[in-house]
Every structure is written in structure tokens, then in C-alpha cells.
């Protein structure tokens, strides 16, 4: 029934707060040893999901059973928590304790930390553990929680927007740490709305919106769902492109064309373009950003195939391989 290959197995998860449906039939499956991204806009239900997975809040009674490392997180929370570590999204720490004391206390609850790892992580995250939590910035509080979690001997790590508040250098340290977890065979669920982070660190991604998963799969799989963006200046007339298989959203002047192109049709389209005669060409590969935005910019409907009929926002950060 429930597979033990999966570190996390959630189907049809519902969670209602009063009249608000925070989670509305969410599916989430993460295999052992996988680094899984969990993407969604603010209020999509990412943190709620993590808190259900931790047994801090209880799924609605009609939800099917949840399995985290083979255990029911609500019933077996204590046993389960010996094997996982968690960093909350909004880290608040006891103001009168120092960062070092906080790390030791949280470790003490688990029966002790790996001391060498503790020292090493404090060094790598450039944390001063003798300062009081009340004077730490948000980023430093985040580091305290990260060190406490990463120094734990855990099989599964749940991170809720772990790098919010970290500077780019510390973000890179965190990415390294995730890679180390992976090479040690650990499993990670990383909630984020920073696409670059997920693209860089994760094997798979689940995109959620309004309490349900709208897309899930490996990043490679997902790219198939989006189209290349092509801008071309032609020697001949662009009008001939209109009827071409796999070409969408075409706008053109007599010699200039802009369109999106199905991944599978690229070969045929390029041949056609070459036939007309290419003067300049830029072709941007699909990014997760496009997929993400396409899901966010349209009204919440369940998993329709990603159709980038929405122009990519000018603020789009990720355009790997942009040839221009």
C-alpha cells in the first residue's frame, strides 16, 4: 500500500483552518536520497505542509494516511523526529540565550550533536555563537537554526525557505551543505520561492498553488512542458512561419519575428528559418522561472500543461544559455 522507497508519501492531503482550505488535496512524494524542491507563492501552503509532515498540526480527518520515513507523523512524532531535522521559515529564538546555547539546547533535545560538525558549521557560516539571540539579525538567527539542524544526525531534512535572509555567500555555503547531505545519502525537502536556488540544488520539484500540487517531477521533465523563446531577424518574409507546426504566439514585422517554440519542434523550425535565411537569432531555453510564472500568473486551476501564453516578466532572473 504505502511504499517504503519513499521518504515522504502524501496523497490527497487536506488541512482546513476554520473555513480556510490551506491544503486542498495535496500530493507529494519524495524518494529516499532525493533533494526535492517545494515551490509556491506566499500562502500556497508550503509551511502548512511542512508542519503537517512534522506532526505539529494534524491533517483533516478525511485525508488519507501520511507517511514520513515510514511513520505517521502525528502518532509517532517523537520517534520520527529522532531521524529528521527541521529549519522553520521564520526563525525566532529565545532572546536571552546565545546562539551557541541555542544550538546546544536544540541538540540536547536530540541527545547531543556531532560536536566536530557543530564547530565546522559555525565556522563555515561565520556565526558568532557568543552573541545573544536578541541582537542577531534575521540572517544570523537563520544560521543558528541551520547549524543546529545540519549538525544533527538525521536522515531527512526539512527546510522552510532556509536562505531567506542569508547573503549570497552564505547561500552558497548552504547549497554546499545540501550537496553533502545528498552524497551522504540523506533526503531533503526544501521549500522555497527562490527559483535559482531550487534549480541549483534540487533533483525534483513540486510546485504548489492554493493548497495543491500543480506540477511535480524532475526538472528535466518539466522543461519539456515549456517552450523555447525565439527572436529572429530574417532575410526573407517571416509570414511563412505562421502555419508551422510547433510555433506559437508569433508576432512579426516583414523581416523580424518573435515566437515560442515547442521543444520537440525546434529542429524543424530551425530548418525552416534557415530556408528563409537567418540574419540574427536568439533562442532562450525554457527555464523553471517560466514554468513557475505561468502557474502563478493564471488563476488557480489544477495541473494544466504549462503553456507560456503569458509573456515572461522583464524581471525574470533565470535565462541560462541566453545567446545574445
Amino acid at each position, binding site marked *: 500500500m504505502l511504499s517504503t522507497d519513499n521518504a515522504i508519501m502524501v496523497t490527497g492531503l487536506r488541512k482546513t483552518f476554520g473555513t480556510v482550505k490551506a491544503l486542498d488535496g495535496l500530493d507529494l512524494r519524495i524518494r529516499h536520497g532525493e533533494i526535492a524542491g517545494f515551490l509556491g507563492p506566499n500562502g500556497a501552503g508550503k509551511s502548512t505542509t511542512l508542519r503537517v509532515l512534522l506532526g505539529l498540526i494534524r491533517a483533516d480527518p478525511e485525508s488519507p494516511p501520511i507517511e514520513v520515513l515510514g511513520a505517521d507523523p502525528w502518532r509517532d512524532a517523537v520517534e520520527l523526529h529522532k531521524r529528521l531535522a527541521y529549519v522553520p521559515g521564520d526563525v525566532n529564538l529565545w532572546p536571552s540565550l546565545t546562539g551557541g*546555547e541555542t544550538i546546544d539546547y*536544540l541538540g540536547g*533535545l536530540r541527545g547531543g550533536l556531532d560536536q566536530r560538525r557543530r564547530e565546522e558549521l559555525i565556522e563555515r557560516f561565520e556565526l558568532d555563537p557568543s552573541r*545573544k539571540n536578541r541582537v542577531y539579525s534575521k540572517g544570523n538567527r537563520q544560521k543558528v537554526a541551520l547549524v543546529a539542524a545540519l549538525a544533527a544526525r538525521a536522515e531527512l531534512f526539512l527546510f522552510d525557505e532556509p536562505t531567506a535572509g542569508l547573503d549570497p555567500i552564505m547561500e552558497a555555503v548552504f547549497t554546499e551543505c545540501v550537496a553533502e547531505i545528498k552524497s551522504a545519502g540523506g533526503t531533503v525537502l526544501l521549500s522555497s520561492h527562490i527559483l535559482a536556488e531550487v534549480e541549483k540544488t534540487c533533483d525534483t520539484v513540486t510546485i504548489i498553488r492554493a493548497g495543491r500540487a500543480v506540477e511535480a517531477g524532475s526538472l528535466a521533465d518539466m522543461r519539456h512542458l515549456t517552450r523555447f523563446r525565439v527572436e529572429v531577424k530574417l532575410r526573407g518574409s517571416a509570414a511563412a512561419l505562421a502555419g508551422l507546426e510547433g510555433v506559437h504566439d508569433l508576432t512579426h514585422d516583414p523581416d523580424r519575428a518573435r515566437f515560442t517554440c515547442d521543444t520537440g519542434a525546434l529542429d524543424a523550425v530551425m530548418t525552416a528559418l534557415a530556408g528563409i535565411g537567418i540574419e540574427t537569432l536568439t533562442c532562450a531555453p525554457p527555464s523553471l522561472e517560466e514554468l513557475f510564472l505561468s502557474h502563478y500568473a493564471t488563476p488557480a486551476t489544477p495541473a494544466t500543461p504549462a503553456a507560456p501564453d503569458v509573456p515572461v516578466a522583464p524581471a525574470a532572473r533565470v535565462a541560462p544559455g541566453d545567446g545574445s
Partner: protein
Amino acid sequence: MDARPGVPELAGWGRLAVGIVRRDRLRLAIWLVAVPAIALPTLSAYAAMSETGAGGQARAALMATPTGTVFGGPGYGLDDYTSGAMIANELLLYLVSAVALAAVTLVVHMTRHEEELGRLELVGAAVVGRRAALAAAVAVVSVEVVAIGLAIGAGMLAIPGLPNVDCLAFGLAIAAVGLAFSAIGALAAQLATTGRGAAAIGVGTVGGAFLLRAFGDTATARDAPDWASWVSPLGWANRTRVFVDLMWWPILLALVFAAGVAWAAWAVAARRDMGAGLAASQPGPARAAKNLLHPSGLVWRRTRGALYGWAGGGAILGLCMGPVMAGLGDYLENNPTIAGLFGVDPRSGLNAAVEAFSAVIVLYMAILMAVFVILGLNQFKADEARGFVELELAGPVSRPRLLGATEATIAMSALLGLAFAGTTYLLVVSTDQNLDPATAPGIGGAVLRAFPGLILTAALASFLVAALPRLAALSWLPLAYSFAHAVLAPAFGWPNWTRYFAPLSAVDLSPGEAIDWRAVAVAGVLAIVLFKAAHVAFKRRDIAT
């Protein structure tokens, strides 16, 4: 830095004040309604009860004892104990103390607490002066205390037999001391680094002022100068000699004091950074001590300061009251009539008086420790809201273990604190040679008799926090009742069953009375049921974010 700092620094304070009133309207309304609503019927009942002649004079004789002085006032007009003199002597101090508590807690809540939650930062970033929030809070609370004072003064006009001018002075004295304490609250909010710390400084100042004037008021009986009552803002209201020989200038003194302290708060506010106290945060240990590595260690670490404060306050109460008891022997010997009120034989009369008095002292100490308990357990709710509980429960810690560690640590601390304060008192009383040494175990017994009530207080607070967190503030209600019972039941001759409505009053502490085992048993069973229910409910509910 700025020659006329008033204008830019205050920018926007009016809008902030409106915002404060809107946000804290419930809090403001409760004090504004509750204090006059409790005060006026009580004042009216006292006035009706008072009668000149033998009864009234016997009461005056009681109020002249050190006990009467400590819990009443300096005793102006005892030789002609009119209803007005009686109200001023026996009730004014409590009204002034209540308004003082309202003032400090409200100002701290509106300033430091908000700052701690980071809300002031949002406001501060908008177009408002740096110290506008402080000014707005003090302004709102000043209006509040003046309104309370005037409501009481105006309401008293309807009580027959009280001169109108004195009624007004009575209300104004309450308002003026209220203003002094709102300024003290503002200063406390600048000195501490946390809302809890600021509240502790503020409430501690009220307690200290109460003791200081108790010391000063009893000094007259020892033929010593009563300077201490003049140093304590709580002593000033009585020093108007309202309804006896009205003087206005102590009210003026309170206003000048209020202005001075407000100025100090204003000056300190300019010298510190947002979020910081006056003293910079010192670095601490980079590693946790062994005894911090489990939940009860953390609870202890975070509450021990408060415990020392509240237990220390109880001990100071004992230290101050001890000499009063020691003096009671001489006093009764010189005043055989009053000794007769307590018992026929002056010697056994002394013991009876000491026992009755000690029961009240121990009850007050238990109330102090109950405040510690309720604050400590309500902290659990605040911790849950701030995500601390989530962090702990995300580790391999069961909910019953976490809640149980909090309950056990706080309840044990409270019992220890009470034992400490009670022992201090006992040691001081024991220095009185006139006292029968056999009285001592009785006083120790009174401390033990207060234990069940304190444990039940913890159980109730824990149940509310765990099962009905939205109603957690209700845990104060039984405590308020116990306090009201302690003050009003003897005066009005409330029937015995009225004591059973609140944990701390349920078991009679008087060493002279037989132990009410039934009440002890009921308290014990109720406590166990409530603790158990708290754990069951906490296991079943969602953890708040």
C-alpha cells in the same frame, strides 16, 4: 543635537495615540470600567457601614494597630472616625495601588511590548518622530488614569454624608498618583530590554512603593519620623488628609514628580537604540551548560530571574512585617482594650493576633507567587505564538514532556519561593521575645497550607494555556477573586462558603483554625484532573504559529 527637539521628535504622535486607543480599546475599557465599578459600590457600602459611636471607634482602634496601619493607611482622623475618614484610611490606598498597576502595565504594554514584537519598527519607519510612540502612550494612559480618578470622584458625590470638595480631592489624588506611575512605566520601558522586564520593573516599583509607605505609616507608632511615606508615591494620596483636614499640595507633589520622571523617560529614550535597553547586550557563553540541555533546564533559565524577583518581593514583605509583629507585643501590652478585642489574656491575645496577621501575610506572599505562576505559564502561550514551541517539538520531544517540564518547573519554583519568603518572615517574627515559641510552627504551617492553592492555580493556568489558549487570560480571575476575598471578606463578614470560589482562598491559612482537609483534598483532585486534561488537550490540538 536639536535645539528644539519637541517638534520633529513628536511628529505624528496624535495619529499614533488614536491608533493605540483603537488597538488597546478593550484593555483601556476594562480598567476604565472595572476600577470605578468595583470602587464605588465598595465605597458606598463602607460609608453605610460606618457609624460614629462605639462601633466606629472600635474599628478605629483596630485600624490604629500596626496591622491596621500596614493594610490601611496612616490613620488620619481616627479619633473622630467619620465615614469619610474611614474610606480614606481603609480604601484609598487600594484604589491608588490599582490605578498605579493599571498605569505601569498599560504604558509598558503600549511601548516596550510593541517594540519587542517589532511593530514599533514599522511605525517608526513611517513619518513619525523618534519618541512619538512614547509620548502617545503616555498621553493615552494619562487621559485614562485621570478619567478613572474623576469617575470615582464624581461617583462619590452621590454617596450621602461626604463633603463635595473632599470627593473631588479623593478622585484627583488617585489621578495624580496614576500620572506618576504612568511616567514610571514609561521610564521602566526605556530601562529594560524586554516587555516582561519592563513590566517587572514597573510592577516591582508599585510593590516597593506599597512597602515603603507601610514602613513609613507604621513609623508613627514607633515614634519615628514617617519620611518613608513621603518618598513613596503611594503614600501621597493619603497625605492629602482627605475627609479629615484636606491639603491639596501632596497632589501637586505627585504632579511635579510625574513631570520629572516623564522628562527622564524622554531623555533616556533619546539615548538608546530601537529594541535596545540602556545597557548594551553583553556577549554570553558560546556553549550551553549541561543543565540547559533539556526543557526544564530552559524553563528554569528563563524564569529564575522572575522567581528571584517575586520571591524576593515576598521576603521583603516578610522583612518589613516582621518588626511590625515584634512591636505588636508592646503595643498590646500598652493597649489592653485592644488586646481584649483579640482575646482576654493579653499574652494569648498576642499569639492570636500574630497568627491571624501571619495568615494574611502568607496569603499575600502566596498571591505574589501565584502572579509568578500565571505569568510563567502564560509565557508558554507567547512562546508558542513566537515559534519556540514549534522548534522544540520538531525535535524528539513529546508534547506532554514539554508541557510537563514547564508546569513542574514553574510550580516547584513557586513553592520554593513561597517557602523562602515565609521562612524569612518566620525568622524575623521569631526574634520577638514576647511571642510564644509555639506560634512558630503555626506560621510555618500557614505556608504549607498555601501550597494546594498555589498548585491548583498552576493547574488552572496550565489547562487554559494548553486547552483553551485564547482564554488564557482568565487564569487571572480566580487570583483577583482571592485578593478581593482577602480584603473584603473580613470587612463585610462574607459567609464562609464564599472562600471556595478561588484556589488561594479555599484553604484557610490561619494557624488557629483546624486544617480544612476537605478543601485540601478537593484542590488536590481538581489539580490532578486539570493537569491531566491539559496534557490530553495539548496532545490533540494543532500547535499555533
